[in-house]
């Protein structure tokens, strides 16, 4: 578990910064990640079954937000209250698909903070690989996307959206999108457990973030707004998933690879921060 291992079953706890021993830290991280698979699976099964057992409508809640958004926005668009540009696929399908992707990103972003807060009592009492909570959380994001996939497949059939072979790469882009959300969320998780301001600020940031991401509108080409949207790391990832799934042509390949680098590198960095910060967080949260 945490601490510097000297012997397979021996653990040493010292006050020194673990970051001073990067090799040992990395070994511990690998070890804990592997050790937490079983537990992560258990926690995921526990959380998902608890959630659905306490819900009458169940999976319905995974479908509702994209559908409601699509109906509202399509009505607004048809009434010309809202003026969105030309989209590559029919607008209701565009909104629903994009919303499902955006929601997945938001879940990945909020997940770590919420999961760590929910696991406070457990964290305060038992020393288990802290990675398990996060892995379980990522698993739940994947599970939820799986449900949304049903909606997406239905959309593709109803709107007769053409599908070509690059769609097989869409999951890779999706994983990068989830990685980006998790990277941000994981970075905020330790501090978000201490200060309530973080989860609150996060929900505010998410609603603002939606407006600079091409979810309900196609990527703008000119003006300050276009620059904002371009510099948003979510944009290339989300657009690429959509591109690969619908047309097969990546419209922002360079930006995609940069954003992917940010996502994967950021995730690793956040993981290190999370690991190092958690004992200090636990020290302050316990009753």
């Amino acid at each position, binding site marked *: *578990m*945490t*601490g510097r291992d000297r*012997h397979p*079953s*021996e*653990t*040493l*706890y*010292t*006050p*020194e*910064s*673990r*970051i*001073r021993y990067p090799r040992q830290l990395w070994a511990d991280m690998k070890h804990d990640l592997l050790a937490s698979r*079983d*537990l992560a699976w*258990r*926690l995921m*099964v*526990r*959380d998902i*079954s*608890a959630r659905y*057992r*306490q819900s009458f409508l169940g999976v319905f809640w995974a479908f509702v937000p994209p559908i409601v958004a699509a109906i509202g926005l399509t009505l607004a668009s048809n009434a010309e209250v809202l003026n969105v540009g030309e989209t590559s696929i029919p607008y209701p399908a565009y909104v629903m698909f994009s919303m499902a992707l955006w929601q997945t990103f938001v879940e990945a972003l909020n997940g770590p903070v919420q999961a760590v807060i929910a696991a406070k*009592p*457990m*964290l*305060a*009492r*038992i*020393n*288990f690989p802290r990675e398990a909570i996060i892995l379980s959380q990522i698993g739940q994001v994947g599970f939820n996307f799986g449900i949304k996939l049903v909606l997406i497949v239905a959309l593709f059939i109803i709107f007769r959206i053409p599908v070509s072979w690059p769609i097989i790469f869409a999951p890779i882009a999706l994983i990068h999108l989830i990685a980006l959300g998790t990277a941000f969320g994981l970075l905020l998780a*330790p*501090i978000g457990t*201490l*200060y309530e301001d973080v989860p609150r600020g996060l929900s505010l940031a998410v609603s603002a973030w939606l407006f600079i991401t091409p979810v309900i509108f196609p990527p703008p080409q000119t003006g300050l707004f276009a620059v904002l949207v371009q510099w948003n790391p979510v944009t290339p990832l989300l657009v690429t998933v959509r591109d690969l799934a619908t047309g097969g042509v990546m419209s922002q390949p360079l930006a995609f690879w940069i954003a992917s680098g940010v996502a994967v590198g950021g995730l690793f960095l956040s993981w290190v*921060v999370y690991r*190092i*910060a958690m*004992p*200090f*967080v*636990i*020290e*302050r949260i*316990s009753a």
Partner: protein
Amino acid sequence: MTYLYQDQDAAWDADQSPDQDTVLTVQQVSKKFCRSLRRSLFYGVQDIATELIGGRTGQPDLRYQEFWALQQVSLKLKRGEALGLIGANGSGKTTLLRIISGLIKPDTGWVRVRGKIAPLIALGAGFSPVLTGRENIYANMSILGLSTQQITQRFEQVVEFAEIGEAIDAPVYSYSSGMAARLGFSCAIHTDPEILLIDEVLAVGDIKFLARCHRRLHQLRQNGTAFVLVSHNPQAILSMCQQSVYLQKGIVRMAGETEAVMAQYEEDLFLGGARKVSSVLHLPPRPACESLGLDIASICFRNPAGEVLPDLTSGEPVVLCVRLQAHQSLSQVNLRLSFMEMSKDGQTTLYLGGSNDKEVFQVAAGWHELQVEFPYLGLAPGAYLLRVDIRREALFILDIVESFSFTVQSNGRMSKSSFYQPRSWRLVPQPDRLDQERSASDILNYTHPNI
């Protein structure tokens, strides 16, 4: 065995050649906490930042509003040993357990653990009330570090031990609190740890379950599991641990044989550090501004001849003498005496109240000695504490002496008794046989009225 190292070098030397049997070494561990929540959170962020840039070296100073929750604590634990951790609330016992289990980092010193630790601190951690007992066993034992295969192997044992039976497939919210606690205990105890940390949890469940827990703990210990047991109940520690550490405000006050440590703990607990010199407790004169009109000057026991007794003997006559100084004339003065036996957690064994006995006094200004005469001392042999308070009427407390300690010796005729019964035995000659037979038949008629 529990060793206490005085210097760091000796500890490191010992560390270079570690004993294979030592499963836990705690060396010069200190931990600081903060009293203010806002500041504590801020320090948390500060600590994280320092840790991330690699700035922590293990020589910290106290920051504003911080205090040492643990200071320079050292101990060792070998396979199959049980160590008791004693101390009042807030003395740092739980903090120490949390450092040992790796939940929080020490601020100085180090902890080395060989093998798996199971904390019996958090029973049923991760229990979800909507899931069934079965699902919760898997989740909980997984959190405690077992693989799915290991859990499946032990599953039957866990259920059997917890006596859940049919309810295993019912959601946990339908369980009684006792059932949930038993299930949590059973999960934790079946993880086969090398070290078991037990924090005040042996209070769950009914007496039958408790007995089973003790049997299981005994069995684990036979198999070489080492224990650290935290309890307020001296009996639990005395019965399980040969060695104990007594923490007082984060510092090891005493360590060693449990009996000696426990005696020190009880003495501190009841006496609050005050000492009795000889057999008379003399209280320092109180400044006029603090006095409530009447002060207790000294307390002692005397025999009927007026000699001060160093200790008492069951069944002997004794006089309790309380010397008083009245600064003014007071009416309705009465004395209350509570005798507490040290070995029974300080429960009151005997209470004597002046007002109950209708013995209230008119006290004139000046010196007096209030005497309470016991023709036979009824207390059984043992160590006692006497709490004396003197009041005007029922509520107005004039002065209190929290603890006057004394011991009672046996008079040699006290075996199997918890108090002394004054008695006299005699053989009384009876008039004649006929009377005796008549009375015998009376008894027969009485006991069998239907015949």
